[in-house]
């Protein structure tokens, strides 16, 4: 019986869930569990927290499904719920000033900056994915304030467009672009030591 629900689109499944069809809800979870889990893990960088976020997200979906406007895209709504779960615990924006300073272009006429740029050229990324690098990557992304991290994850890792990211986070497209630029430069700067070691 569940198999027959496979072919239903999200709108049909959601209409069934609204009528109390538990199997339709199970089908919706099956369809989106990897999306929610992957996104939650990329945001939390921690299995326990990702699990918590996974649970909270689908429980929220179940509780609030009546509020979902079927004219919207379900995945956009879902991403918004996961992001809100993550942002609920947002930390103080102690790095805000530093991130804003990243809007200025680096002085690429400067010899030190030129040396820094050149050294990345020789780093084969395939051989760099070791434990030390993963730890550094976790530490770097965790230093980003959540409202920046979520933009980086949506745009670069989930490959959402700037427009969809803006819709998910209820931001303007220029705000998405600005946060993405700062996040990328910040992460690049944080990984620099390893890429040149």
């Amino acid at each position: 019986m569940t198999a027959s629900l496979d072919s239903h689109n999200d709108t049909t499944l959601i209409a069934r869930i609204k009528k109390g069809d538990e199997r339709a809800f199970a089908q919706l979870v099956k369809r989106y569990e990897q999306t929610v889990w992957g996104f939650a893990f990329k945001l939390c960088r921690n299995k326990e927290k990702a699990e918590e976020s996974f649970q909270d997200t689908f429980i929220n979906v179940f509780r609030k499904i009546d509020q979902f406007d079927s004219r919207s895209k379900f995945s956009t709504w879902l991403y918004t719920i996961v992001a809100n779960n993550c942002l609920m615990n947002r930390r103080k924006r102690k790095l805000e000033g530093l991130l804003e300073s990243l809007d200025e272009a680096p002085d690429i006429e400067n010899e030190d900056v030129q040396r820094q740029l050149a050294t990345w050229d020789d780093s084969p990324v395939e051989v760099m994915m070791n434990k030390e690098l993963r730890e550094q990557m976790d530490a770097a992304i965790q230093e980003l304030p959540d409202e920046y991290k979520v933009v980086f994850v949506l745009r670069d890792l989930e490959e959402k467009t700037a427009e969809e990211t803006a819709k998910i986070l209820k931001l303007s497209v220029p705000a998405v672009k600005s946060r993405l630029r700062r996040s990328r430069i910040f992460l690049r700067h944080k990984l620099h030591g390893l890429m040149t070691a």
Partner: protein
Amino acid sequence: MKQSHGNIKKHIHTLSCGKVYEHLCDNLDAKLDSESCRRIKAHIKGCKNCSALLDSLKKTVYLYKQYPAPALPEQSRKKLFAVIHMEKAKKRPAR
């Protein structure tokens, strides 16, 4: 519309690295064919430093993309449906 080689050369000189930096991060692999995109690409092609910066940004993103995510634990799914079951019981009107 194709640009002549001479025009591209001119753009390399008319666009500053700072201006390129502003747009560099919008879309690292932009395949857009707008006039501004062509100008930025032309600048990067001819500018060693902007090209190195773009490359390092691409590597940063690539590294995060390659980061392996663990599989969803089976117990998470079970736990979820146990909670949903309780939620449903709460929703049901008492007789």
